């Protein structure tokens, strides 16, 4: 069966009176190939995928002109269960794509939707879970899985559907680099063996050389999709290592014999460490190892044993609303950070309650907003921002609050390399100027490592500082 997916002369806009996000876009998806889409955050990577999956304009925006044709038929005219047999999509936010409670139920749900024969469903779901090494998660409740694990289950759901065309929107944002390499290799193998067409959007272009057949970029200037030469993927600068520094022994924040569980599972056995002031550290480790849980414990959002100290005082005696002004947890899921409706309201709230209002003058805030390229969205509702814009706003509102300890959980997920550099510079500058202690979880190492002062590795229920005896 031959399949085709074509975009013809498409003009698409989110609201009728705003500038279109795509203007007279023509694009033919190369079938039986492995493709990569890049572009700055907010340029429309998710939008083009949702358009080509037939979800937009049903769920958002307006198509002003043009057609999107799946096998010569307008894609929005095809019923979803028929469409899902041809096109499947993996969404950026892993936790919000599950209708069912457990992993197995979720796969069964998807297979039932496409009217897969009842007697084959269990077999199919079992095979897919085994292939992705997820069998042991079969009966786990989805909402209790880590971000990376959820993304793998979402991937399993899509593979179960067996659609020949697969869109993956930032699939590796919460996945560690080792698993990323494994999944990429599996995807490539599957693409060749089963004649699939894969289109991935990724902010991180490393490790794609040799895998990818076509590389595309969304050009903001022309609001169009441009094919780039593949050579761009192989000319990447080498990864630098963290330069070992002798950091001063000035820590104000430390933990002693800290340990915690999730359910029955021990994530951290008694561990003691401190983090220096005025420096930015990286916390690395595999998916589901407990990095986000460590942050939650340090922020008093998760039960633990042991002690956490600030300025020599055990934190357990400090009330939560005061502790929240000492330790800030910048969540993996950006929208959890927001408590107002609009971007400018979020910024104003942080400014008026900032712990360092002398530092965060109106001009400095304005500069930061400009640099992060958020000026044109100040009036927007924060939920309508793109994934990358949400990440930038979220980090900025906490930087303005300026807690002495700032814990960033995947602040760069979905950010393009230049946005990342700007944000990281801002984090580093603030940390240095205000003598704060900053720790970052980031699976993305490219563009990050060179700015990091020290690294903690979480592994086998313990955390160690790398490069220490």
């Amino acid at each position, binding site marked *: 069966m031959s399949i085709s997916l074509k975009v013809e002369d498409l003009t698409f806009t989110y609201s009728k009176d705003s500038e279109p996000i795509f203007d007279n876009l023509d694009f033919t998806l190369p079938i039986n190939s492995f493709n990569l889409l890049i572009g700055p955050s907010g340029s429309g990577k998710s939008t083009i995928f949702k358009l080509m999956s037939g979800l937009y304009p049903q769920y958002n925006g307006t198509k002003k002109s043009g057609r999107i044709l799946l096998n010569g038929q307008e894609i929005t005219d095809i019923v*979803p269960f028929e469409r899902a047999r041809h096109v499947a999509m993996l969404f950026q936010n892993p936790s919000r794509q599950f209708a069912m409670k457990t992993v197995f139920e979720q796969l069964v749900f998807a297979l039932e939707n496409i009217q897969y024969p009842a007697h084959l469903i269990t077999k199919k779901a079992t095979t897919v879970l085994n292939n992705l090494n997820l069998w042991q998660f079969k009966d786990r409740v989805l909402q209790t899985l880590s971000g990376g694990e959820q993304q793998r289950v979402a991937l399993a759901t899509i593979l179960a559907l067996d659609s020949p065309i697969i869109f993956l929107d930032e699939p590796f944002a919460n996945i560690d680099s080792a698993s990323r390499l494994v999944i990429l290799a599996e995807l490539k193998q599957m693409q060749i063996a089963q004649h699939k067409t894969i289109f991935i959007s990724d902010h991180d272009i490393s490790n794609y050389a040799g895998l990818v057949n076509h590389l595309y970029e969304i050009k903001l200037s022309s609001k169009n999709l441009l094919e780039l030469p593949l050579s761009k993927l192989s000319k990447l600068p080498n990864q630098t290592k963290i330069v070992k520094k002798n950091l001063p022994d000035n820590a104000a924040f430390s933990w002693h014999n800290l340990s915690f569980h999730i359910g029955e599972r021990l994530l951290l056995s008694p561990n003691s460490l401190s983090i220096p002031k005025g420096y930015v550290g990286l916390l690395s480790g595999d998916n589901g190892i407990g990095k986000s849980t460590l942050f939650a414990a340090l922020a008093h959002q998760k039960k633990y044993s042991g002690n956490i100290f600030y300025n020599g005082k055990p934190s357990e005696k400090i009330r939560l609303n005061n502790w929240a002004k000492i330790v800030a947890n910048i969540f993996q899921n950006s929208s959890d950070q927001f*408590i107002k409706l609009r971007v400018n309201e979020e910024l104003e709230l942080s400014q008026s*309650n900032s712990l360092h209002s002398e530092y965060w003058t109106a001009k400095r805030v304005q500069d930061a907003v400009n640099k992060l390229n958020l000026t044109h969205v100040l009036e927007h509702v924060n939920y309508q921002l793109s994934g990358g814009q949400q990440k930038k706003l979220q980090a900025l509102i906490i930087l303005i609050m300026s807690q002495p300890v700032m814990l960033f959980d995947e602040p760069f997920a979905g950010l393009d390399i230049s946005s990342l550099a700007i944000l990281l510079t801002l984090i580093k500058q603030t940390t240095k100027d205000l003598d704060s202690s900053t720790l970052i979880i980031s699976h993305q190492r490219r563009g990050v490592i060179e700015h990091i002062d020290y690294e903690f590795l979480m592994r086998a229920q313990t955390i160690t500082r790398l490069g220490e005896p």
Partner: protein
Amino acid sequence: MNRKRINPAVLVIIMLGIGLQITFAHSVFTNIGVIIITCLYLSYCKTSSKLLILTSLYAFPLALGSWWSFIAFGTGDVWHIAWIYASRVYAYLYLGAIVTLTVPIKDILLSLALHLNLSSTFVYGLLASFNLLGRIKSQYKTIRYSAMMRGTTYHFWNPNLYLRIIIVALNWSQDLAEAMTSQGFTEGAQRTLTYKDNLPKWQWGLAALLILLYFIFSFLVRPW
């Protein structure tokens, strides 16, 4: 678990068929009859007695409240009416419990879809929202904590807190609807149904019999 149970769809029919009549019936004895029979079925199903006692305690202020208000402010045969209303609360409670405490919510909905043609949009919409409940609880905590980090406190009576939860839930539902559509879920379309349960014909007869018996006793025999 291997004991024979009444099918969830039949239980729902019994609950509706009798529940609706309770509203119009004026008999303490038939209410007590309902309470006894439902409690017998609940103990046959080995429902957690702790849970039953707790729910009974929760309902007590309601029963006492309506009982007392008729005694204090009613006219006519206040004792009779007071006991009717008090026993009615418990009849409703245990009637609901034979459905909700003996069968998981997923089985109730799927059984209704299988035997009574409940639309799958309704079934999966409800299931998805039930699965979100736990997250809404944790979201409540997260929002309060996020506010603290920004130097403000959202007390539990603060409307901003709930506005926030509603906005979050609306966004989840949008994302979820998109995801379900892309996973092939189609409103009103055929789906494969792997859910199976046992529904012998005599269970429909049982439902009809119980509903009819209740009708005869409440409206024709009319004991006190």
